[in-house]
């Protein structure tokens, strides 16, 4: 064993204390992250110049921004005195739409994600299925919810059904990807042990894989519930139902106190779902 040096090292030669023989180096620098000096400087230079160019690309219309100052103050004032009552009918319909489509879309998304996630795990699925599932995931992940919502609104018309389809589709990209990666990272020995008993593919899935990924899948699903609610508040902007439409209208009419009320409600609901889902996740572990 190479590491067993101390046992052979002479134990009497060195003395404790601060008198240090001069042959030990007295200077030490942490080895740099990038060892090549020229590459290091090149990267620093490139980063700096990009930063300058990027900053230069933002041209601010200061006159317009100064105009907006007063509106900004009014909006902050709106948070101090949020107006729940005058638009309560719109707000409550929006909230019910948001909540129902969040829940249904999450359930539907989970049901779709599980088979696709299993298909996206290289250690379980054959190559063609793997590639197919990965393609679905890639499309779902790279298309913004808003863009998907635009397309679904064009197909099924305005309303929460378009939102439901959008969120369910977006859930696939999130859940199936993470589930697939989880399955790929499972402890192979456990699955092999089940396989060694002569278990079929389904039995391996049930006994060797499921116990390992289930806690995390539940956690991720609850997390996705949070995300879906938050997303449900924006897709209304393009007409896919939910509280977002109400918010958009309020802002269009410069009704900052109603807008503030809606934002506060969104934050409160997110807080509530987050707390309850983290509570459930803790109980599961």
């Amino acid at each position, binding site marked *: 064993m190479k590491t*067993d040096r101390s*046992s052979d090292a002479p134990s009497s030669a060195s*003395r404790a204390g601060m008198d240090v023989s001069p042959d*030990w180096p007295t200077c030490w620098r942490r080895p740099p992250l990038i060892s090549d000096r020229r590459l290091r400087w090149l990267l620093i230079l490139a980063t700096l110049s990009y930063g300058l160019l990027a900053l230069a690309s933002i041209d601010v219309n200061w006159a317009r921004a100064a105009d907006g100052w007063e509106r900004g103050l009014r909006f902050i004032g709106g948070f101090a005195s949020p107006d729940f009552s005058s638009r309560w009918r719109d707000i409550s319909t929006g909230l019910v739409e948001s909540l129902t489509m969040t829940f249904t879309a999450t359930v539907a998304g989970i049901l779709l994600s599980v088979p696709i996630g299993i298909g996206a795990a290289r250690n379980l699925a054959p190559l063609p299925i793997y590639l197919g599932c990965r393609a679905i995931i890639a499309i779902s992940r790279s298309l913004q919810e808003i863009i998907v919502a635009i397309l679904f609104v064009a197909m099924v018309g305005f309303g929460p059904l378009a939102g439901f389809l959008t969120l369910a589709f977006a859930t696939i990209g999130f859940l199936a990807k993470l589930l697939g990666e989880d399955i790929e990272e499972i402890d192979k020995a456990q699955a092999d042990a089940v396989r060694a008993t002569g278990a079929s593919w389904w039995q391996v899935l049930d006994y060797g894989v499921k116990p390992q990924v289930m806690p995390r899948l539940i956690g991720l699903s609850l997390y996705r519930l949070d995300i879906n609610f938050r997303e449900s508040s924006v897709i209304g902007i393009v007409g896919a139902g939910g509280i977002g439409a109400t918010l958009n209208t309020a802002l269009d009419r410069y009704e900052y106190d109603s807008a503030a009320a809606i934002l506060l409600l969104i934050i409160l609901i997110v807080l509530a779902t987050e707390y309850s889902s983290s509570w459930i996740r803790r109980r599961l572990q």
Partner: protein
Amino acid sequence: MVCPTTASSAERVSPDARSPLALRLVRLSKRYPAGDLALSDVSLSVPPGQVLGLIGPSGAGKSTLIRCINRLVEPTSGQVFLGPARPGSPAPDEIELSALGRRGLRRARRRIGMIFQEFALVERLTVMENVLSGRLGYVPFWRSWLRRFPPADIANAYRLLDRVGLAEHADKRADALSGGQRQRVGITRALAQEPDLLLVDEPTASLDPKTSRQIMRLLREVCAEANRADDTGRGSGPGSGRGLAAIVNIHDVALAQQFMMRIVGLRAGRIVYDGPPDGLSPEVLTQIYGEEDWGSTTEDAGHSGGAPERHPAGATQHHPGPEPPTDQSMAGAL
């Protein structure tokens, strides 16, 4: 808070009052917020240079005891005294660790090196940074921030690394090392503090038997070397040396018997044995580890086996026929 009888009982532990102790614990108790009493009335004196092994079943309070000394765990009551900084200097230099404020505690901690079971190296820092972190209490903040330590510290770090055989690994990240190597870095970090006391928490629990022995031998050697630096007496017997004292939590009785000068047995937060390693008779071990944890062994030793009946029926199934390895290693030690 300590009555006079306590002080005299502590003195009784060390009859030679003139020789300053490296460490003195007086009626130390720790009760965790959950309510369990981890330590109760532990009094202990450790002379300089003594390597003391602390044995006992898990949950006996070994780790708590060690952490109460440098107050990583705050003791509930009792006192901890750290001996004078320079061995041989008069006793009034002794400081009461348990009474120090935050700054004073940091100062005192510099003199107490700690070595951990899981090595507790900062894994993503280089070996050298880990060793130099032993100097953090001595250098101003800006030096540690820029990693510009005083030349003497760096030279000393290299010397210590060479001593434990890791000089060429100085620039490696700590997580690139093997378990034995990491523990050596842990020892080096503690030595870089130039401590007067080493607190060693299960140093070998994460190591294989061979590496464990090497680490224990290294520990004994570095303590002995520190003794020689201050003391002219070469063949210093157990307890008579001066300088680096160590308290070693250890669960392996055989290892403890081979490498420790003195053994203290802890059970349920109380000291039940204090004496030389060869005094660990089967009766003493039973007293330390109790009947419950040593099911079949205690029955073999001829003890009345009332314990198993107190357990639910399932519990005895954990110890089927063949003896677990710890039993065997203990049997070898007997």
